[in-house]
C-alpha cells in the first residue's frame, strides 16, 4: 500500500468522523462520538477484512474467487450449528463450544476453498462459474438445513432454536483499555483482533517470504513459475484453501462473535463488498484492510448521523435523508477509485486456468 493511498484514506475517514462530530458536538462530547465511531468502524470492517484477505490469497495465486459470500455464509452456519450442537446436546460449556465452532467455521471455509480449487484447478471449470456455484449452493444448503433442523417439529432440537452458547468474550488490551472513554476502542472480541493481526501476517507472508514469492509468481506468470520448478497446481490449491479458511473465520464473526444466531442470507452481500475491498486495495492485505475500514467508517457515519438527525443544520438538510446518507460508502468508493487511485492491476494470470 503506497503513501498516496494511505493519505487519501486517512483524510476520508477523518472527514466522515468530523462531520458527525461537528453536528453532534452540542449534545455529546466529541471524544465519545469519536470512540463510538471507531468502535463501529472496527466491528463492521472485521468480516470485510477477512473476506478481502481470502480474495487476496486466492487471486494472488491466480484463482478468481467470487464465492467469498458463499464461503462466509456456510461457515457462519456450520460454525454456529456446531457450537449449539455441542452446547445443547453434549452439554459442553459455552467457551469450548464457541471455540470449536470457530474451528469448524474455518474448516468449512477451507473445504469450500478445496472445492473451488478442485473445480477450477483440476477440472479447469471457469472460475467465475465455480464461485457462482459456491454462492448459490451456500444459499440453498444453509437455508434448507436451517429449516429442516430448527423449524420442523421432528428436528433434533424439537422445532425450536435452542439457547445459543452466547458469543466470544471481549478481550481488552491491558493498559490501553483503561484510558477513560477512548479505552473502549481497545475492547474488542477475538476475531476482530485476529483479523487485524492477520492483515500484517498476510502482508508479511505474501511479500517477505519464499512462499509469498512463489504464490505471486504462480499468479503472475505460471509458465515461468513452472519452468523454475514451482508446482503451479499445488500452490493454487493451498492458497485457495488458505483463502477459504480466512473467509470461514470471517463467517464465524457473524454467528459466534457478533450475534449468537443464524439467519438465512445473513452475510447480506458482504462477500461482494469484500471483493470490492480487495480490488480497491490493489490485491494487497494492507490495502484491503484500509478499504474495509473506509466501509466501516462510512457505516459508522450513517448510523451516527441518524442519532443527530434533529441537530442537522437546515442548509445540510439532505443529510437528514437516510437514503441519501446511505449512498456515502458507495459513491465514495467510486470517486476514490476513479479519481484518486485510478488503475488497479490484478495478478496477470488471475482467472485463467493453467495448461501445461
Amino acid at each position, binding site marked *: 500500500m503506497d503513501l498516496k493511498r494511505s493519505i487519501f484514506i486517512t483524510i476520508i475517514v477523518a472527514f466522515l468522523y468530523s462531520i458527525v462530530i461537528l453536528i453532534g458536538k452540542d449534545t455529546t462530547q466529541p471524544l465519545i462520538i469519536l470512540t463510538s465511531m471507531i468502535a463501529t468502524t472496527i466491528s463492521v470492517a472485521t468480516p470485510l477484512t477477512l473476506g478481502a484477505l481470502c480474495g487476496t490469497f486466492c487471486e494472488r495465486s491466480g484463482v478468481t474467487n467470487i464465492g467469498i459470500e458463499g464461503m462466509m455464509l456456510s461457515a457462519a452456519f456450520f460454525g454456529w450449528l456446531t457450537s449449539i450442537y455441542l452446547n445443547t446436546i453434549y452439554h459442553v460449556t459455552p467457551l469450548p463450544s464457541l471455540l470449536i465452532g470457530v474451528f469448524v467455521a474455518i474448516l468449512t471455509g477451507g473445504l469450500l476453498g478445496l472445492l473451488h480449487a478442485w473445480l477450477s484447478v483440476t477440472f479447469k471449470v471457469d472460475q467465475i*462459474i465455480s464461485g457462482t456455484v459456491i454462492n448459490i449452493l451456500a444459499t440453498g444448503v444453509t437455508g434448507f438445513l436451517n429449516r*429442516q433442523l430448527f423449524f420442523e417439529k421432528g428436528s433434533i432440537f424439537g422445532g425450536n432454536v435452542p439457547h445459543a452458547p452466547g458469543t466470544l468474550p471481549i478481550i481488552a488490551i491491558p493498559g490501553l483499555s483503561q484510558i477513560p472513554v477512548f479505552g473502549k476502542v481497545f475492547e474488542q472480541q477475538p476475531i476482530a483482533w485476529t483479523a487485524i493481526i492477520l492483515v500484517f501476517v498476510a502482508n508479511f507472508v505474501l511479500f517477505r517470504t519464499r512462499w509469498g514469492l512463489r504464490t505471486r509468481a504462480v499468479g503472475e506468470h505460471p509458465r515461468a513459475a513452472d519452468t523454475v520448478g514451482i508446482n503451479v497446481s499445488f500452490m493454487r490449491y493451498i492458497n485457495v484453501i488458505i483463502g477459504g479458511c480466512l473467509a470461514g473465520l470471517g463467517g464465524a464473526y457473524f454467528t459466534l462473535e457478533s450475534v449468537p444466531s443464524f439467519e438465512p442470507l445473513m452475510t447480506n452481500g458482504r462477500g461482494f463488498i469484500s471483493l470490492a475491498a480487495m480490488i480497491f486495495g490493489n490485491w494487497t492485505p494492507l490495502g484491503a484492510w484500509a478499504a474495509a475500514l473506509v466501509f466501516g467508517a462510512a457505516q459508522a457515519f450513517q448510523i451516527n448521523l441518524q442519532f443527530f438527525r434533529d441537530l442537522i443544520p437546515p442548509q445540510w438538510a439532505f443529510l437528514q435523508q437516510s437514503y441519501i446518507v446511505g449512498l456515502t460508502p458507495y459513491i465514495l468508493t467510486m470517486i476514490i477509485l476513479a479519481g484518486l487511485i485510478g488503475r488497479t492491476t490484478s495478478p496477470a494470470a488471475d482467472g485463467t486456468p493453467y495448461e501445461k
Partner: protein
Amino acid sequence: MDKENLKPQEPTPPEPINDSKFINIYLVPILAVVTALILGAFIIWWVGGNPLLAYKGLLQGAFGSVRALSETTVWASPYIFAGLAVAVGFKGGLFNIGGEGQLAFGAVAASWAGYALPGIFHAQIPPILHILLSVGIGMLAGAIWGGIPGYLKAKTGAHEVINTIMMNYIALNLTSFLLNGPMKDPSPSNVIARTPLIAESARIPAIFPNYRFHWGFILALALAFGVWWLLWKTRLGFEIRTTGLNPDAAKYAGIDVAKTIVIAMSLSGALAGLAGAIEVTALNYRHELGFSSGYGFDAIAIALLGKNHPLGVVLASLLFAAMRNGATKMQFLTQIPVDIISIIQALILLFVSADAIVRYIYRIRTPQERVVYTRGWGK
C-alpha cells in the same frame, strides 16, 4: 491468453450433425440436469420428503396447465433479458454484477415515464408511442446505469466489478428514496413504497384474456435473436468479442477499445433496464419497492449456464423459470423448503460447467477444444 484465441471465432458453417457433436452440445447438458435432479431427489428423500411427489409438483406447477405454462413465461422474460445482459458483458470481457441495480433503475424510470409523461405534456399520448417512450426511457436508464461503470473502466481503469456492485447499492438507496418520497403513490389509502399506476396508454396490452403471458416474452425471444445477430453478424459485435477475448490484440487490430467497453456495458445495462421496464409496462403496471427478487444475480448463473450464447441463455432462462414457477406447487404438495431449488440449480450449473464430471460418470469422451466463458478480471 493462448494464440488461437486471438482470432475471434467466426460463425461455423453448418455441418452435418454427427454423434459427437450431438453428445457434446445436447446430451452432456441434459445428463448434467438429470444428474442434478437425481442428487436433489436424494436430498429430498434424506430429509423425509417424497422426491416423486416433489418432482411431480415441480412439473405440474411449471408445465401442467396452460396457466402454468403462461406463468413460466412470465418468470422467464426478465431472466432472458437479464441473462442476455450479463452474457453481452462477458462477451466483451466485462463482468456485469450490476444487473440488479440496472433492472431496478430501468423499472423506476419506465414507471415514471408511464405515469408522469401525460401530465408533463398536458396531453394523452397515443398508446404505441407512450409504450415505446416508457420502455425506451427504462432502457436508457439501464444503459446509463451500466454505462457509468463502463465509462469509468475505459477512462480511469476503475474496475467494473467494484463499480457495478457499488451502482447496485446506489440504485437500491435511490429507489428507496424515490419510492418513499417524490415518486410515492399519493393516493390516501396507499401505505406501500411504490409508484402510482402507469397510464393505460403506457400498458402493453395482454395477448390472451385471463393469462399473464405477455408480449415481453416474445420480445425477449426476438431480442435473443437480435443479440446473436449483433454479436456474430455485425462489425460492432466483432469488436465487442475481440475486445473481450484480448484487448491488446483488439487495439492492434485498430479497434477503439475504450469506446467498445463503454458500448458493451451500456448495451448490457440497457438489456437489464429493459427487463425492469417490461416488468412494469407489461406485468405490474407500477414499480414497487423491491423485495429484491435477485434477477441480477440469477442472471449471472443463467448467462454462465447458457455459455454466454443467446440460445443458451433462452434455454437456461426457461429452465430456471420453470423451476421457480413450479416451486409453488412442489411446496404445496410436499412442504419442503424452496431452498431445494437453489441447491438443484447450483448442481446443474456445476455439472454443466464441470462437464468432465458428467463425462466421467457416464463415460463420455472429452472433446478436443475448450470453450472459454469468462476471463476473470485479468487485464
